[in-house]
């Protein structure tokens, strides 16, 4: 498989730089002229995932893997993990601290938004060991580059 993989570092609790990893991914995809709508979906997913990692995770990484038929976006962190994944997937459920809410984050829409904007999502988490969110975006046959 001739996949192309690129990984970007996410620093925990660094709200000033939060979003940079997903901007890097966007720029990367833009130079390949992916469909703007697809880039937008990936941008939203990347940002939500990155914010989750910044708020709840330890340090983490945002990576993108590009194949001829699909794109895989993965966000992994070494944070305290998710206790109940099903609950976390519900809109409005949030474990964000007050300080996060004061900054306008923590509305409990992160994972639901990621689910809405990706074609397939898998969340793996073990308490105390971190979380991996993997999202798949299928490319139109032959039309991946618009």
């Amino acid at each position: 498989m001739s996949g192309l993989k690129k990984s970007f570092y996410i620093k925990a609790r660094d709200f000033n730089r939060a979003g940079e990893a997903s901007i890097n991914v966007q720029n990367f995809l833009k130079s390949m002229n992916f469909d703007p709508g697809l880039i937008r979906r990936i941008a939203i997913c990347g940002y939500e995932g990155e914010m989750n990692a910044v708020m709840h995770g330890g340090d983490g990484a945002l990576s993108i893997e590009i194949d001829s038929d699909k794109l895989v976006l993965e966000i992994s962190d070494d944070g305290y993990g998710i206790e109940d994944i099903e609950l976390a997937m519900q809109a409005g459920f949030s474990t964000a601290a007050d300080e996060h809410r004061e900054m306008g984050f923590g509305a409990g829409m992160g994972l639901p938004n990621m689910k809405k904007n990706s074609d397939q999502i898998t969340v793996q988490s073990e308490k105390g060991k971190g979380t991996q969110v993997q999202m798949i975006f299928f490319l139109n046959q032959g039309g991946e580059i618009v």
Partner: protein
Amino acid sequence: MSAKQNSACFVRFDEDLCTGCASCLRVCPTKAIRIKKKKSIRIVNRCIGCGECIRACPAGAVRAATSDLEALEKDHVAVALVSPVLYAQFPGVMPKDILHGLRQMDFQHTIDMSYFLEMFQFASEEFIKRNRETHNAPWPLISPVCPVVVRLIAFQFPSLMAHVLPVLRPVALMAREVKRRIIPFYMETGEKVALYYINPCPTKMDLTCLEPGEQPTIPEIALGINDIYPELAGHVRRIRESDAIPFYQTRFEYETCATGNASMWAMSGGEIVDMDIDKSLAVSGLEETIAYLQKIEMGLFQDIEYIEFRTCREGCLGGVLNVVDKYLAKSAVQKMIKMFGLGRHLPRENILRLYEKGDFQTEKRPSRLLNLFGEQKEGLSIESMQKIEKILDVLEGRDCAACGAPDCRTFAEDIVRGNASMKDCLWVRAHGKKKSKAPSTG
């Protein structure tokens, strides 16, 4: 291809003055500039006309591609389209004296923008009000006024094109009005008309409503404020020193109607301050504009209805072709607002009637702009991206720009596209390709 001309014609480089310092390379937001063979500079077809290179050049080698006064077509009736930013260049002078000065410079008509700015505001408010129910366009809507912002979106954030408010820009309304009323007026006598845009930046002209390849039906010429300032300042001084009350009969109602509301537009926030919108923001400066567009692309600010972007700091006052320092100009505007007050003068009902008729709707433009850049930006394949990553492993990654490209990644892209060669890199030439590289931290 005329699209090519349009997009590449905003700045000119003077190779004799250029020292090859690479300042312009680094500030260009679309990475449009390269330096080849020490001095010769070429623009990859990506210029959006922000003017940052003009600002950055310490040698004065970059200029706006506006015309100079000699471009005045003597056998045409000259109509000046005046941006309110011009008034801010004359602190303490009344706009009517400035317009009078322009008329002494052989502009037969001086069109003040106030009228069209108000029209735009009414039409925009109406669109936003209706959009609350119809949700035809996504929030936040983005102001179409700054043409650099629209081009930046078309080039770098095409997914946000749907956010650009689909209302004709004030400049377009102004040019259309001239075409509807002034040109037919002179047609009767067989005289030809030429339009002159008096601009604070290289891009305020509105040629964007033309189809690719379509030529304007009348001469449309862009003049920088700095091009006309010395002569205009002389006329304005004489007008103010003279005791006689200047008498000038204007033919069209919008030739001298400068208002406080219009002067406000020169400043960042001037567009939205008097608009009836619940949640709006004004963002100015190129870096901030890009940062906000990135955030909008990532799904933020959906609770905001309208964002006014200006790529120049402090708004159009910060335009690169202005003469007076932007903070002095700002203070002049503030004084004018004190004097004139805000508030609009056009009857809302009349504008709404026009709105119902679709008089403010944009057509063609967004898709045309997308095509303009879409054609030129050829996407890189997975294989090319892999090659780029391999090249980047070899390069030092200091973005020194000595190769003539703004940074290592762009340089690697140029190599893969066949526009540069590995030996253009000084580091590679000095140390060879086989340097083992420490693991990347980025």
